[in-house]
């Protein structure tokens, strides 16, 4: 038991990769593709069950659980240092939770080269977990880049018509950003070397040196480093105007790919901002916060407006992602406990709700092979259960009270309202205006999602082709139920989630705001739903 808990994170990273090897070996040896999905499902479920052990951990003195730190390439000075805290815990669980669902979602959809498909899915899972648990900058970068390759293939081989354009665009956008980050990472190593005599890629060591004042950034250096990291993450989130790869990638990706992309890959960007940008460069974070807030608001409104006019269901959901991730960025840059907790919570919500929406679009696409909204209409009469699930998920995405989306958006709005980051003087504070603009995004979300629901499900059944549509199968129901359950649970009782992340988030927030001489407002309790 000790051996397991000591190496829990390593096991979580390696287990899916071994699963990939198993799938590969099985398909090469038996030449039979029938069992592959079962093997994949087995490994992802096992990974999920093992990841639940993370909840049993107690943070060590530095706030991290299940920490492991062993030298890796000493010539470069990098260590294999992993650990989870309140920030990464939920994201790791989100990853392991969504993977079995993604596997099940493509149960019958993958006809072309199934072995390769499952291998890539499993490798992707390894990389994603690696991203969330790395505490060494170089190891983080490594997983961050490694997650690109499986996705590149998933979209490129199993994607839609325009897949090659979409996947190359996805790869080049993201790789460009992360290379900038690599320069910043190496620069940090040398800045630390110059300041203290030892170079390091270790996040905690860097933070400690910053804390003790041994390491400090000269005026433009801190800002440049911040930007190198932030642009890389902003592309991943994506923050307007770096979002253009997202609709293409989402639309062309197979259902499982879209679900993972929305649920987990986008979170790497927002996670990176919170994990690296804020603690490492608190000053630059404060200085540049207004820019990011403005971009986030543009993203919210622009994403919503563009979503409204999309004729393709999947593209519509993709643009709604731009808007929703805008909320997350807004909450983070408010630098209040409410806003940042809300941002983290909204990351999980978005993963669940938007993931569910992509699944639902995938269900109907498998039946009719079209995603054009105009092809549908009135299908609630032939697919009542599907319609129910769809409307439910839409409500969660819009942010109906007692569903998860509401909690996140509410916390973010309150956080922005209380934020002092936009105050130029005491009297002129732009935070109210920012909140107001962001608030319109909620209304827009209701407009485009409900309008889509109305056009697809209600009215008369106009298209004869839709008359014979079958309602959801047991497999599809089984996939949706855990997601729907979480939507309700997280909407009604967010306390256990927020409690776990609170210490970490508050520590980051204090770090950013402390040196500003600004107020570090301690809210009594962020769990507001009784």
């Amino acid at each position, binding site marked *: 038991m000790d051996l397991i808990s000591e190496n829990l994170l390593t096991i979580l990273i390696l287990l899916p990769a071994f699963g990939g090897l198993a799938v590969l070996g099985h398909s090469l040896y038996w030449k039979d593709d029938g069992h592959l999905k079962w093997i994949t499902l087995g490994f992802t479920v096992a990974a999920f069950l093992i990841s639940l052990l993370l909840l049993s951990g107690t943070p060590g003195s530095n706030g991290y659980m299940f920490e492991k730190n062993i030298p890796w*390439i000493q010539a470069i000075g990098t260590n294999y240092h992993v650990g989870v805290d309140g920030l990464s815990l939920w994201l790791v669980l989100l990853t392991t939770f969504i993977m079995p669902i993604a596997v099940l979602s493509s149960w019958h959809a993958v006809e072309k080269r199934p072995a390769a498909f499952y291998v890539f899915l499993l490798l992707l899972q390894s990389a994603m977990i690696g991203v969330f648990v790395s505490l060494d900058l170089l190891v983080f970068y*490594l997983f961050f880049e*490694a997650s690109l390759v499986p996705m590149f293939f998933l979209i490129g081989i199993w994607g839609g018509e325009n897949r090659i354009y979409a996947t190359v665009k996805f790869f080049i956008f993201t790789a*460009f950003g992360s*290379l900038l980050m690599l*320069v910043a990472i190496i620069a940090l190593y040398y800045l630390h070397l110059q300041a203290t005599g030892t170079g390091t890629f270790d996040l905690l060591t860097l933070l400690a040196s910053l804390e003790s004042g041994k390491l400090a950034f000269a005026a433009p250096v801190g800002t440049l480093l911040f930007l190198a990291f932030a642009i890389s993450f902003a592309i991943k989130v994506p923050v307007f105007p770096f979002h253009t790869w997202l609709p293409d990638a989402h639309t062309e990706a197979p259902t499982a790919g879209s679900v993972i992309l929305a649920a987990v890959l986008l979170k790497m960007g927002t996670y990176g901002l919170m994990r690296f940008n804020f603690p490492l460069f608190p000053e630059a974070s404060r200085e540049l916060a207004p820019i990011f807030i403005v971009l986030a608001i543009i993203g919210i409104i622009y994403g919503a407006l563009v979503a409204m006019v999309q004729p393709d269901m999947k593209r519509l959901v993709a643009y709604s992602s731009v808007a929703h991730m805008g909320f997350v960025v807004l909450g983070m840059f408010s630098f209040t406990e409410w806003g940042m907790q809300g941002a983290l919570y909204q990351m999980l919500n978005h993963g669940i709700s938007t993931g569910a929406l992509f699944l639902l679009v995938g269900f109907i696409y498998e039946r009719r092979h079209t995603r054009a909204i105009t092809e549908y209409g009135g299908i609630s009469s032939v697919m009542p259960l599907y319609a129910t699930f769809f409307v439910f998920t839409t409500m969660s995405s819009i942010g109906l009270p007692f569903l998860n989306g509401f909690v996140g958006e509410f916390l973010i709005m309150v956080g922005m309202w209380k934020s002092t980051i936009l105050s130029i003087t005491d009297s002129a504070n732009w935070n109210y205006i920012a909140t107001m603009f962001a608030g319109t995004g909620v209304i827009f979300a209701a407009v485009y999602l409900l309008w889509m629901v109305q056009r697809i499900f209600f009215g008369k059944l106009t298209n004869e082709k839709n008359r014979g549509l079958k309602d959801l199968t047991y497999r599809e129901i089984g996939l949706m139920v855990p997601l729907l359950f979480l939507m309700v649970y997280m909407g009604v009782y967010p306390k256990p989630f927020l409690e776990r992340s609170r210490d970490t988030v508050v520590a980051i927030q204090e770090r950013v705001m402390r040196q500003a001489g600004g107020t570090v407002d301690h809210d009594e309790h962020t769990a507001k739903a009784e």
Partner: protein
Amino acid sequence: MQLADPNVNLTIILPEIIIAVAGVVVMLYDCFFPRNRVLTGAVSLIGIGLAGAALAWIWSGAGGVPVTAWGGMVTHDNLRLGFTTVFLLVSALTILISTVWVEQEDVAAGEFHALLLFATFGMMLMAVGNDMVVIFLGLETLSIATYVMAGLRKGDLRSNESSMKYFVLGSLASAFLLYGIALVYGATGSTNITEIAAKIADPNFPALLLVGAAMLIVGFGFKIAAVPFHVWTPDVYEGAPATITGFMATGPKAAAFASFTRVFVIGFPFIAGAEAAGYLHQAWITVMAVIAILTMTVGNIAAIMQNNVKRMLAFSSISHAGYTLVGLIGAGFAATTAARDEAVAAVAFYMLTYAVTTLGAFALITLLAQRNDRRAEFNDFNGIGTRSPVLAFTMALFMLSLLGMPLTAGFIGKVLVFRPALEAGNTLLTVVVVAAVLNTAISAYYYLRLIVVMFFKERTTSWTAPQIPAAVTAAIIITVLGVFYLGIFGNGLIEKFSRSVTVAEAQVK
């Protein structure tokens, strides 16, 4: 004048001797019993293996090898160790890969193996030589063997053109180099690198030194295919048989880098307070920085526009010369000897990662393109991901390593060469590194393009999966393992490459 003790030491050049002897044996054997390609190949491999063992033996310090010998003409340091490893590996892999080509096209294998061993001998001289004369000897031995190898496909016009072009332009470059050596000799009164390094603080004719250094940059720049001395590369690489192209893109390039590093980083160091040396140092660093940026950018942009995979890899090899130059410049800026050794090791390690990856890629191209490299266009690779998945995934791996994806050799190589340049904290060098990184992003396009055509496009024409001879399988397995090994467990090797073996250290052992 008293004659100095020439310090004759055969142990220090044992690997070189073994390779030369193996070359002679293969050549003689081929004279009397021609056309036994298995035997000559085996003898060559054994020779390379023995040379490797000898290198490892003196590396361990067991032979009690001095730092310099033969009157200071050869030296035993980490630069020599690192680069010689690269050369031996390149030759061994080239022999393994060449089996398919030799069989398909009925090439005179004995000649080829002998030439390859002599070329290897030349490369090893270039790394071990601590004197401009030895370096030049090595370079010429290497070049003449390579000129012939490029034209081995006698009936093919493109191969002839390739050989001729390489010969004419290569001779021109050698002339530049020789002129540079003469001028530096005129300025410093020595051809010995160590003595030059001591003398540049107060040279006889500072102007001659600068002109000489410029000539040397032209000469070496040609050999490593740096922009603007690169124009020969695409034609020569495309025309030569793929196996030879793979060799030329890795071996001679690494050898040129070995001497380039030796002459500039060790021969023209920065000496505090010395005006002439400082001026020279600043001049060559600036020139090389400009060359590095040009090389990376031109190589990458030209690579994007290619439709032939061999030509694409030719331009990619140009851009990789640019990345390696970044490491060389970083080594030139190193503040301490230890830092310099580390940076030199980084350059050698980069060449190793690049060689392993590129040779693997060329092995696959030799297999896939088939006789006379007829099918080396991008279109010819359409959809082979489904037909020959193992080969296609291996090719994809090599492309990702060339691109520098983490967990592959290419990534560690890139980090290592960019590091010393960033460490300098100099604005120019930081600009160079940023340019290198942006170029890496550009390069994603054409490396991915091959993956895209292999996996995402449908094949319209018929495809017969190639037969893979055992030797090529071995080469591919070695390169694949190498890509992962260097990418994940490269630590031990980097440390060995960075460590200067000194007599004192050897005696302690």
